[in-house]
């Protein structure tokens, strides 16, 4: 069974991204062990794997952590995948899978599943809804912990009900047996978590995570209006908006992500365990949310909005957790773009190693990650804002303020041209002197021109209408061709019916 399991996986194994970007990140500023202590659950090994792939200095340590963490759990598939990854990265010692443990654990998992299924059958015979619900939940949780059944290589359809998909479906089956809103809330929470797991593992296998994030979004929406009592709801709302924010971010809707995350109540940080799971540890900590929300807001909000809603709003308590994020935003609002970008760049590695921020924007290796995309947006916004106070700026001074990312001599010029052509920047470039010139607004004359244009347009339209009415009134509509009425009335094509 174990051999069979490994053989079935190659198609979906964690591929090493072959792009030049992968494996080139600098070591982050955090300490891996402390960092890993912030998280638990099935996402932790995936996070560590993400780091291992992208950051060579930490690869060995993180794989080691990941494999030992997995071995404490029941997920044999994940274990074998991690071992394979270790092999690919060149750590043969870590790559050697403990076949004894694999075999034993697999056997145990199977037995456990059989036992749970038997129990559920019993409950169903007794027709006690609550027992059935709990039985379903047990099976689903078991599937989640063990990574679900393997897909049948002979049957493409089975992919839909293997792996975490099986767990998601099993949780969904609880719905029919839920009797109180609290049950629904608990089920929805699990669905959100499972869908996030599905999404992350899909991303690591380079397939599209969009449907999974969409289901996160949908479930987060349901969680907001699940109908539980007020005091319960205050615990659910933070989770709902955090999950929706993460989903928006992952789908690339940065402004929605910013709006959602900024609206997350700070109680998130002190929630603890809700319905048997600590969302902060399992999904994203309050510190993570501070980063996500801060970056998205920086990339999409105007300066005034940043001051009013981000620094001045309730999101500030999140930002206190990550002072450098707060510092970057206040630098931006005080027009110190260079310092702001430098601060952000300092944490580039940290954020790229985050499993949500560091994920590729679209499935495809060259698309860049969300961090890259957000950084690019912030940079564009900074350049535009910087130029707004000048009528002329030389490219050289622009390049000192905003050091271009590539070493090519025309990098700055190309970037500016790209921005002008895509309409982000309203300016013109003097290539000869290397000066960027802001447009001069001639309000008076442009108003004149506009008025004249409108007047001419009105005149033209009136004349055309008048012509139409006149023709109709004089009974001079073009008639059907009557054969021999000359060259003028050759009816073109099949005009009528």
């Amino acid at each position, binding site marked *: 069974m174990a051999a069979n399991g490994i053989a079935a996986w190659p198609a979906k194994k964690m591929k090493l991204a072959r792009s030049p970007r992968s494996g080139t990140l600098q070591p982050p500023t955090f300490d891996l062990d402390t960092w890993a202590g912030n998280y638990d659950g099935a996402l932790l090994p995936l996070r560590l794997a993400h780091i291992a792939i992208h950051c060579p200095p930490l690869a060995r340590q993180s794989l080691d952590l990941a494999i030992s963490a997995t071995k404490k759990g029941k997920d044999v598939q994940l274990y074998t995948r991690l071992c394979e990854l270790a092999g690919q990265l060149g750590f043969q010692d870590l790559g050697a899978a403990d076949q004894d443990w694999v075999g034993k654990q697999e056997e145990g998992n199977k037995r456990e599943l059989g036992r749970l299924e038997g129990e559920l059958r019993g409950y169903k015979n007794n027709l006690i809804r609550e027992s059935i619900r709990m039985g379903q939940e047990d099976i689903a949780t078991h599937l989640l912990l063990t990574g679900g059944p393997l897909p049948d290589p002979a049957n493409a359809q089975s992919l839909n009900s293997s792996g975490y998909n099986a767990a998601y479906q099993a949780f969904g089956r609880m719905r029919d047996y839920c009797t109180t809103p609290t049950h629904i809330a608990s089920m929805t929470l699990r669905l959100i978590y499972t869908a996030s797991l599905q999404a992350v593992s899909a991303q690591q296998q380079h397939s599209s995570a969009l449907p999974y994030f969409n289901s996160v979004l949908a479930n987060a929406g349901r969680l907001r209006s699940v109908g539980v009592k007020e005091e319960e709801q205050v615990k659910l709302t933070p989770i709902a908006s955090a999950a929706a924010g993460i989903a928006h971010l992952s789908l690339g809707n940065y402004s929605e992500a910013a709006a959602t995350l900024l609206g997350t109540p700070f109680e998130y940080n002190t929630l603890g365990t809700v319905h048997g799971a600590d969302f902060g540890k399992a999904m994203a900590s309050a510190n993570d949310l501070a980063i996500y929300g801060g970056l998205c807001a920086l990339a999409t909000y105007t300066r005034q909005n940043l001051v009013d809603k981000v620094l001045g709003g309730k999101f500030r308590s999140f930002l206190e957790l990550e002072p450098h994020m707060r510092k970057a935003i206040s630098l931006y609002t005080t027009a110190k773009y260079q310092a702001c970008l430098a601060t952000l760049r300092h944490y580039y590695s940290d954020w790229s190693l985050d499993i949500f921020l560091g994920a590729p924007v679209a499935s495809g290796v060259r698309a860049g990650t969300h961090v890259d995309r957000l950084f690019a947006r912030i940079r564009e916004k900074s350049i535009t804002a910087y130029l707004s106070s000048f009528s002329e700026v030389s490219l050289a001074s622009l390049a000192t303020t905003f050091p271009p990312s590539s070493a090519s001599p025309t990098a700055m010029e190309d970037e500016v*041209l790209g921005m*002008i*052509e895509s309409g982000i920047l309203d300016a*013109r*470039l*003097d*290539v*000869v*002197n290397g*000066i960027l*010139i802001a*447009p*001069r607004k*001639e309000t*008076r*004359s*442009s108003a*004149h021109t506009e*008025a*004249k244009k*409108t*007047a*001419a*347009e*009105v*005149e*033209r*339209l*009136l*004349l*055309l*209408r*008048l*012509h*139409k*009415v*006149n*023709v*109709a*009134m*004089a009974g*001079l*509509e*073009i*008639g*059907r*061709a009557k054969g021999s*009425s*000359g*060259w*003028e*009335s*050759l*009816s*073109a*094509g*099949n*005009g*009528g*019916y």
Partner: protein
Amino acid sequence: MADALAAMLSFPPDNVDKLSPKDYDRAMHAHMKIMDKTTQWTKPVDKQNILDLLNPTLNSIPYLYALIEHIKAAGKDKTRLDALLDRALIFFALFDPVQVRYVGASWVMVLGWVMDRLRAPAIPNLTPISTAILRLDPTAGTFTTNHLYFLRACLSSAVPSQALPILDKNIYAFPTIPPKNVPEDLLSEEHELSNAFITTKNGFTDKVQPDLILEYYLLGAHVYIGQRNWTRARLFLESVILTPSQQHATSALQVEAYKKWVLVGLLAEGKSYPLPRTHDTVVMKSIRLVAKPYDVLAEAFEKREWRKYQAEMDVGAQVWHDDGNLRMVKEAGDALLKYRVIDLQKTFAALPVSRVASHMGFTADATLHMVTDMIRYGALNASITPGSTSGEAVLRFHSTDVGPSSTVAQEGELAAQTKRIEDLVTFVRDADRRLQLTKEYVEHLKRVKRQGTGPDGDLADQMDLTWDAPVPGQDDGDEDIMAA
């Protein structure tokens, strides 16, 4: 014979200025009765030619009648005909526009004769015709077949610009049968608009046919295209395209107009004009089906793909040639290059010619030459600083906002525009009035009244002739009424 002359001179009476239109009309009818009976137009009176005795301004009708008889009598005698032509020209410069309203057919007859005579010389001068038309009707806004014949004459004599005095006037009405049950306006009254005295009844025009209208507008557009007056050309072509039809019939002239319309759009604005909102979708579909090659051309143009445009141009050479549009298609090709340079100024303020050249895919020398030409002809608001080679020369775009041509000139322009729109309001109000006199409108009113769904059910409200400025792009009521 002297009696006859006395009768001819009896009108206008001395107190003509004091006559009310009604009395004038009555006197004129009496006068006409006598004139119609008179036969001795060609006989000299006291050994003098009768035409010498009549004043063309005061005695326009007898002068006109005499002229016709003389022309008939002259046969093919060239000297006599030339002399008569001179007299006719004098007549057309001096006639009384009110008097000739009563003798439209005769007037048109002489006009036609003069037009034929004037076309004969190598370099014809057809201005007397346009002057005559404008003297009769200073607005020239009621379409007559004279408009078209004159335009044809100008084009076939290769003097299209001479048609401009007439073409520049907007047509605001077609001659119709005056509505029944409405007291007829007197010809002698002072009319604001000429469609009151130019009707299908009184001989100023042959029978107007739909294809004649289309032809007039299409030929007019040709003249404007030749003049590079894109605005007017567009208006004329759109008039052709938008002419309503029965059961979505489509005229070949509309197809031709559409083809030119696409090209004019490319030349004038660098992209196709937006389709007029009031077009008939079925007609437009059949037009575009036939004019497909032009749409493809326009697409390549709008994407600024010069190579593709060139390829399309070569492939379709026969099509353009057969349509007589080959020169315009080629010109649009040149314009495409210019637009590529013009597009650059959105991005650049200054750049070396070598960069322009690489953008265009040309050599630096050719590019420099082209850009210099563009600047010289005012297509580009820019300057060139020469360098040691063509590639090093610098092209510097000036501010895209062209400085105001001077406030005074702008004011003049605005005033002219205001005047044009005010005139239009008069035209529209008149069309509105005529519309309300049609049978269809009355039936519509009846129906509305019966159903009780009118605005107030109050007839007076609906007869209100006030006219509000239309919101551009919105249907104005006129067409709804026709559709109802």
